[in-house]
């Protein structure tokens, strides 16, 4: 019984292996491991939550569950672009935390074998830490996102705020 379940799990793992959901922000295409993705929904009304960093747009009601949404454009310090009917929210689940990522548009699910992924060049730049690799698909390249890093928010960014508020209270 357990063995069969294990096999099925294995099977599912295999099915998700090396698969990436690709989405676009402006001209660049990004990829995100399919295993993290729960669902993709259209843009919907977002309730603003005060005092959050700019890229946290607020919270949405996803069938009774309340999840936070992050604008990936703003997270990468790009210019804000008005939402339209192609704007999507990719709901991902990492370490029991659900979060929605707002992206310009969702492209497709593609398979990128490990051999086609190269590590990002070592640029000592803040933005590059979100990229865990660069995938080659035909003539194109996709920037593969490190979801953990995307959600981590501390360090320099929150230092000036930590000075103002005593979060331990």
């Amino acid at each position: 019984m357990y063995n069969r379940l294990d096999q099925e799990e294995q099977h599912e793992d295999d099915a998700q292996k090396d698969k990436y959901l690709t989405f676009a922000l402006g001209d660049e295409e990004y990829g995100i491991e399919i295993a993290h993705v729960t669902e993709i929904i259209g843009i919907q009304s977002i309730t603003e939550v005060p005092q959050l960093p700019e890229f946290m747009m607020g919270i949405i009601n996803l069938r009774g569950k309340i999840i936070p949404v992050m604008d990936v454009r703003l997270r990468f310090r790009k210019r804000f672009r008005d939402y339209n009917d192609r704007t999507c929210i990719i709901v991902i689940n990492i370490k029991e935390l659900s979060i929605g990522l707002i992206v310009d548009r969702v492209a497709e699910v593609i398979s990128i074998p490990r051999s086609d992924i190269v590590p990002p060049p070592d640029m000592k730049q803040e933005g590059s830490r979100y990229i865990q690799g660069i995938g080659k698909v035909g003539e194109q390249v996709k920037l593969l996102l490190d979801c953990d890093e995307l959600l981590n928010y501390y360090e320099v960014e929150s230092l000036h705020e930590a000075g103002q508020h005593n979060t331990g209270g």
Partner: protein
Amino acid sequence: MTEQQQAELYLEMYVFESEQLIGQLEAILLECEKSGSFASEAVDEIFRSMHTLKGSAAMMQFACISEVAHAIEDLFYALRLNPLDSDSFGQLFELILTGLDFIKAETLKLRQGHEPDGNAESIVAGIKSFLDYWNKAETEREYMAVVFFDEGCQMENVRAYNLLRQLADRGLEPLFYEPVGILEGEDTVDIIRNEGFKLNLCSASPEEDIRDCLHSIAFVREVQLRPVSHLQSDSQVTAVADEDFKETASQYERRDIPAQTLISVNVGKLDQLMDLVGELVIAEAMVTQHEELKDIASDHFQKAAVHLRKITGELQNIVMSIRMVPLATTFHKMHRIVRDMGKKLDKEVDIHIIGEETEVDKNIIEHIADPLMHLVRNAVDHGMENTQERLAAGKTAIGSLTLEARNAGSDVIILVRDDGRGLDKDKIFNRAVAHGLIIGREQTDMSDREIFNLIFLPGFSTKENVTEYSGRGVGMDVAFKNIENVGGSIAIESVKGEGTVISLKIPLTLAIIDGMNVRVGNSRYTIPTTAIQESFKPRLTDTLVDPVGNEMIMLRGECYPILRLHEQFGKGERGGNLNDGVLVVVEQEERRLCLLVDELLGQQQVVVKTLPAYIRNLKKINGLAGCTLLGDGSISLILDVAGLMDTNGAAKGRLHQGILKRE
């Protein structure tokens, strides 16, 4: 389910059950201590519980726990057979409590994810040696025998002498016998013939063996044999003991709980159930108040909608009531604390419990157990005088501490009342000044209440000597924070020399609150109705602005600070219009604040949801308690009035709120 998960599940169940059993055992034991004896029901009960503890500990392979439980079980097994004399009661009692404490400590280790590694040897050895001593004392019983010889056998005195010889051969030396000097006088023959030969024996053998032994001796016709105990030799004592026994027995009958009708459920499942019901309530509102259905004039639909609302309402009530737990267990824990502290500090304190059946949401109980313990400890340690002081002050020698709980609307009030020395206002004030907790205030401007509340400030402690139990200056402020965190409040009343009453006001549940929905710009917020005093349209002529830009309003001769929610929660721009808006006056702990909102949308019960974990980890948002879903599926943010006051008090209205220096 993997093996690992299975094991964790078992462990969780084990810890839960053990903790419950330990709690019950403690309650029974303390009851026994009060009555000074072990009623047979209590003995059976303790024996059974210990047996269960031992069995499950052995199954989980926690050797040290099962050893101790086994030893205590042995004790009670012996106690079932032989009654205990009052001298060893105290000793036995301490042994059992130490054993139980050991099990409790080990179980706590398990709960905290450690292995139970305590050394049980000394406890087990202690119990063993007590048991040995007691067995010797108890099994060597004294018997009184009256022996009649065959009629017409003649020379009864010689027969009696022979009997003594034969008994001596079998190792049964009589303690004494009657009549004495059987071989000297002829008159002993008649006495023995008429009244029988009386002798007292001491033996470890059971009664039957002795009887058989006596019968086996030649010419013995009849043997009257009965064990002698010092209690039974005095018939009056026996009668009193019997009455005592009946009394304690009846106490246990009343406590009888029909166990088979209860099941234990994982709290996680209940939380899930509650979330689902919360969603159901919202979904119900979404359907019945749907925009497109508003114009349908169908009686059938209306009827069906009302029916649905009724059922969801009932369902919600039931689910809420499942989570309600009586305060009894929490209160009864205090028995033990008061007893132990009383012993250590040499104070006699009686604890009275009123309204232990009052029910509170399980989550809340978890939050108030610790604060309550701090309050009780403080009352006994700081509040209570010792016996001499009490007598000198003309009070009863034994102090009294009352724990009382009662319902008051959607709140529960818990009172901790002692008849000790009361709080000393001057001492508290001076202490607070010395520690820099108050600045620029005269004692005469402060109300009693304000002064008493100083003891909840961090770093405050009036006791010069730090004791084992309290006085480190942590605790009271932590207690205060915990109570505040569940939306409760603490108030102190005290009369010097007569005692102190600390009252906790705690909401029945955290999950559903009455709220007023308001609109601020495009956002909606919910203000807990309990905090709202009034709301009104302000007149611009009543408002003032101080040089720093703080806005205030005069209302019936009092001046209140204004907080524009636009500004607090917007992107910093000055929004909102005093002309068109509405001011909502909110109060928390006697502090008031006027919130400027655009519109009042209406009052409703809302299901409180916490903000998503990611946001909570990211940042603690001041002034927000959570969020809720409205009937149309949109989200409303629930305001935390106390939080708003703190931010407002810190940043702005120093003029009004500058009394307490809080970190």
